[in-house]
């Protein structure tokens, strides 16, 4: 395509947007609402993931070694545990060290235990994927020298459930809103197609190719989509940061800063806006051209 033609077609798209200003503005607003809800769903998901990570760090499994386990064997067990694919971290705490920790907490009460330490050497294990909790615990139990394993299975199961629900609901909400946005864009473009049907008929009578007729509408869709994307991004950023800075839910668990997800959201919003724009305009102009075949 010549640059001249390209420029002309882009100008045509912009002209059409301006001619249907109120309709364009309305569809940008609705698209902004859809993108905002989608963005919120994404931020909720990211925060749940973050909370999940945090909770998971608190939720460790402790495996105790049998009394007869030697220091060498304990080192070997640690290595075996670390070799498990779902294990991210293993901390070895000898029974002496464990007693010292308790002594820090309970003081002299435990003084008498120094001579005959009833505690066991412990391995504090962190898992990578809590959905594989049961399998990994079973594997840990089979390691020679491990006496028993302490864990809070209910908490891990609840966390997995919460995450799955958030993920499923989030995906459905986003999918639904994308479809809604698509129809809104398609509808706006349909109106501009009808308002420009005379031009379309003239274009065709002087021998315009299909893409030449479509291009300005695609430009219009892209502009609608990207403006909506940019506006939603700005709004979401502002509102989210205000909420984050003014509301603290717990001293140890905070909302993730926007900076952590800024580029995913930016790319998502712009791409989401533009893709809906292009698809929406392709849908309506395609249907129009099909109905008015020649």
């Amino acid at each position, binding site marked *: 395509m010549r640059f001249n033609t390209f420029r002309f077609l882009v100008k045509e798209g912009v002209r059409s947007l301006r001619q249907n200003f109120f309709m364009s503005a309305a569809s940008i607003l609705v698209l902004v609402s859809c993108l905002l809800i989608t963005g919120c769903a994404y931020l909720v998901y990211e925060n749940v993931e973050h909370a999940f990570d945090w909770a998971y760090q608190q939720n460790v499994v402790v495996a105790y070694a049998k009394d007869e386990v030697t220091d060498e064997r304990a080192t070997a067990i640690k290595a075996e545990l670390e070799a498990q694919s779902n294990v991210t971290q293993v901390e070895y705490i000898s029974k002496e060290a464990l007693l010292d920790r308790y002594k820090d907490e309970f003081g002299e009460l435990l003084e008498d235990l120094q001579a005959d330490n009833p505690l066991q050497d412990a391995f504090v294990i962190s898992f990578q994927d809590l959905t594989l909790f049961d399998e990994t615990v079973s594997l840990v139990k089979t390691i020679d020298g491990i006496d028993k394993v302490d864990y809070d299975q209910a908490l891990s199961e609840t966390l997995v459930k919460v995450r799955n629900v958030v993920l499923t609901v989030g995906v459905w909400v986003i999918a639904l809103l994308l479809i809604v946005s698509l129809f809104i864009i398609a509808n706006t473009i349909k109106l501009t197609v009808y308002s420009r049907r005379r031009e379309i008929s*003239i274009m065709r009578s*002087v021998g315009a190719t299909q893409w030449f007729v479509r291009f300005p509408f695609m430009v219009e869709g892209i502009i609608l989509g990207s403006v909506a994307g940019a506006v939603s991004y700005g709004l979401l950023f502002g509102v989210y940061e205000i909420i984050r800075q003014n509301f603290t839910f717990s001293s140890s668990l905070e909302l993730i800063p926007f900076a952590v997800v800024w580029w995913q959201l930016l790319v998502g919003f712009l791409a989401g806006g533009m893709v809906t724009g292009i698809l929406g305009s392709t849908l309506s102009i395609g249907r129009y051209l099909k109905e008015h075949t020649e």
Partner: protein
Amino acid sequence: MIEFRDVHKTYETGNEALKGIDIKIEEGEFVFIVGASGAGKSTFLKLIMREEVATSGEVVVSNFKLSKLKKRQIPYLRRAMGIVFQDFRLIDTMTVFDNVAFAMRVVGASQREIRRRVPYVLGLVGLQGKTKNFPAELSGGEQQRVGLARALVNNPSLIIADEPTGNIDPELSYEIMELLTEINRRGTTVLVVTHDQELVKSFGRRVIEIRQGLVVSDSKEVPHEI
């Protein structure tokens, strides 16, 4: 240039618009197509422009066999012809210059070509002083001349004018017809569809009359009743 070989056209509604048309129009001819409304003139034009496809028979326009023409080739067929409409079909929001340039932009002409060609064509139709005007500021006759300039601007070998004088004053009709005659004199084939008997008479050209989907006369004589 244009050839119809036993062309039939029946619409999905069952309406039999053309019932076996055989016509040959040579390059450089000036032909009037006449007939009452509903006679089949519009279908005849739509087949030439490939807005409709013949139910049977063959239509050939500028070496394009229309029954075999693929959809994506249609724009190239239309570039070989310039079409003048009864209702002018100008874009109200564009100036005279841009309305004419529009047809060139559609075919991908360069800015330089547009700047050179559009004023020349507007000069041919006598609108050199109106380039910056909008259609609403022009008379019907002037608007039709813009339509004519747009049809001419890509230098087509065939001009099709569908009731070109239908919406303008009689005295201005002759101006438009004179322009079409001048265009024809320069070698372009011109096909004019009209029901204006007086106009047809005064130009003394080949006249094809269509009645109830059939060619009832094809001569330089004007048929008695239209």
